[in-house]
């Protein structure tokens, strides 16, 4: 397994992303990962806030229409996240914080799917108040994304391979 990971890390593409001085290499991947984060966590938070009672004049059936943009952010981050992983695959693969982040994201995806199938698919969606199950799901979704963002940030500070002091 480690051989495979170090092969990834030493591949031409990963080396270019890691070592090129071009702004299109590592900096741009990080930038896209940040924009994707804003889209997936931000839009998800708004859907959750709407379920929790914010902006009640916006029908929930219409909030469904912003879901594709949330998933666009998700897939952008899945793609850029894979690139960021290959750049130092051998250290990320042994970092507990990395697995904590992945666990939060996996939970957030499951919760997003439950919200879509149990809350947003309800035929009487706009006719009756959201039940407590829906509200708990929305709350857990917010917590999961905050957890994923926190763990993602801590990757720069905790665990193996931490060489810099993050943003300072």
């Amino acid at each position: 397994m480690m051989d495979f990971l170090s092969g990834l890390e030493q591949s031409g593409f990963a080396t270019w992303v890691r070592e090129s001085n071009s702004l299109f290499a590592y900096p741009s991947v990080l930038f896209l990962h940040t924009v994707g984060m804003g889209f997936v966590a931000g839009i998800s938070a708004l859907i959750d806030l709407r379920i929790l009672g914010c902006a009640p004049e916006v029908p929930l059936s219409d909030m469904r229409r912003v879901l594709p943009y949330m998933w666009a952010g998700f897939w952008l981050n899945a793609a850029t996240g894979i690139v960021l992983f290959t750049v130092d695959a051998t250290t990320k693969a042994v970092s507990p914080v990395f697995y904590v982040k992945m666990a939060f994201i996996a939970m957030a995806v499951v919760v997003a799917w439950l919200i879509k199938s149990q809350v947003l698919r309800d035929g009487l969606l706009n006719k009756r108040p959201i039940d407590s199950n829906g509200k708990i799901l929305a709350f857990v979704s917010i917590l999961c994304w905050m957890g994923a963002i926190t763990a993602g940030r801590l990757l720069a500070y905790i665990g193996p391979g931490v060489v810099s002091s993050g943003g300072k």
Partner: protein
Amino acid sequence: MSLANLAHLHLLLNHFPTIGFGIALGLFFVSLAGKSDDLKRASLVIFLVIALLAIPLYMSGKAAEQAIAGRPGVSETLMETHQDAALLAFVFMEITGLIAWLALWQFRRFSHPARWNLSAVLVLSIVTFGLMARAANIGGEIRHPEITSEGTVDSDTEWLKSASIASFINTTAWAWPAIETLHFIGLSLLLGVAFVVNLRVLGVVKNVSFAAFHRMLPWGVLGFGVNLATGVLFFITVPEQYTQNIALHLKMVLILLAGVNVLYFTVFDEPWALGPGDDAPLKAKIIAASTLVLWIGVIYFGRMMPFIGGSF
């Protein structure tokens, strides 16, 4: 930008907060006495615009300090006192700006602001005016000994001290990562609201009125407030890595432009009048699209700070 240019910017902007808040306060008094909602909204807009201008003013102060540090007759202690007095005034000014924005939002939402709100703006703006005038006066003394009164003691007695905040964050292991995490969470909230609200204007969720989406705006402004506070903490902790960073300067320009767009969506009737099914006018669509581009640009230059300018 060079230190000299940033010092220029500091000298150019430094009269705006005191004079601007003075004018806005005068107008606010008149509007309260004359019970004129239009004048109330006008003074709230001035409070908000001045609070936005205070951001580059505060940040350029560090460069102005570096530009004249060590020159004969320039007191380091006086500059530090000015910096701390300015920080206190700045904090009050930004809180006033945020509450003034909330009042403008409430004018839309309920057709009049909550009773506590205008009183809060009144009290906060008077306090801010006093604090800002004091900070400006201490700042003036740095290069104008003629205004210094006899027997002024040269010691920094401010209670909100930039140096103490910086040393706390520098010596506390979790502080910097925690502030960064909050900055990222604030970013997500801000971008999410900007995106969904502007999507309505652009026509994606057209069958819902703009007024319905307007209720989400405070969450975006909350995200902005979190990021302003955490951003200023970064700046206070390691100012030398930011003062001359061109990516940060561009980021600030884009933030101010995006702030103007937020005013458009809060104050102007045009987007507000969009009922269910209404197509937004071209102007509103251009402003909505530019808001999204501006915030993504803000994220770009924020992310590029370590890579462009190379001061990290």
